[in-house]
């Protein structure tokens, strides 16, 4: 009888977190905004901790629309890349050690990005989740929702279209 023992949980977590870390920390702009990702299984939640340099209106004060757009776009691109990479990470097709030393896979390119500003961004931490509505060989469509204190009370949402990186065999 052939029964493959499940891998120890630490091995699984290390591989997944290693891949995610490489993806997130390899991009200078993502570091500039201070964005981190929280992972539960394959579900990602992006976190942008409040920082003075994210302020766009010092009178209110409120987050800058551009910082919010950057946060949502990052959430969409990482979320999309992650959903495509997931299979490869799980099957071991991707060498996570290579990822860790900066050999990142090509990321999807933004074709267009449309942000709705629903309420002003408060000077607090912000969270966002991406949903890949369509992911084809060449094009993908991703929707992102962002909130602060209450999950059900979005302060911004966005839809973007992306060009998928061309594979080796294309």
């Amino acid at each position, binding site marked *: 009888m052939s029964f493959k023992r499940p891998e120890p949980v630490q091995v699984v977590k290390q591989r997944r977190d290693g891949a995610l870390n490489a993806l997130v920390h390899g991009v200078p702009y993502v570091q500039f905004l201070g964005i981190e990702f929280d992972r539960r299984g394959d579900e990602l939640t992006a976190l942008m901790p409040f920082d003075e340099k994210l*302020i*766009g209106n010092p009178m209110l004060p409120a987050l800058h629309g551009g*910082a919010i757009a950057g946060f949502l776009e990052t959430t969409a691109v990482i979320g999309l890349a992650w959903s495509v990479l997931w299979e490869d990470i799980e099957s071991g097709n991707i060498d996570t050690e290579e990822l860790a030393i900066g050999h990142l896979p090509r990321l999807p390119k933004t074709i267009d*990005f*449309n942000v709705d500003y629903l309420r002003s961004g408060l000077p607090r931490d912000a969270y966002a989740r991406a949903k890949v509505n369509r992911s084809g060989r060449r094009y993908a469509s991703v929707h992102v929702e962002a909130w602060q204190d209450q999950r059900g009370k979005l302060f911004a949402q966005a839809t973007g279209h992306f060009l998928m990186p061309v594979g080796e065999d294309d």
Partner: protein
Amino acid sequence: MNSKKAEMAEQFISAIPHCKALGMKLTGIGDGFAEMELPYDLRIVGDPETGVLHGGAVSALMDTCCGAAAMSHPASPATTATIDLRIDYMRAATPGQTIRTRAECYHITRSVAFVRATALDDDPDRPVATAAGAFTVGGLK
């Protein structure tokens, strides 16, 4: 637009922390239009392999410039917030080059300012990105 108002606009924008952090500069402003620049900076690179700037930084530049154009319209009470903004990325900006953008408020009602913008690098014939958005006339609510 008189030079005093233009000077105020410049001071207003240079006081925005996010714009300061990105090194944005207002280079021109008049009735219903604004021009801004974003110098190349390694901290805001989106693709470390090619050194191309992240789309988010270009978004921030265009959002600010569109907001400035909306506020500078004679019919605006000089305060605004973004309702929505759509950006089309035509091509990667050439690494090392400053991004320049010009926004114009082409229509304004009592409540909404309609604005569009184009972003260029050193090649004036091939835009890097275009933006179109709606802005509030006065504050939110």
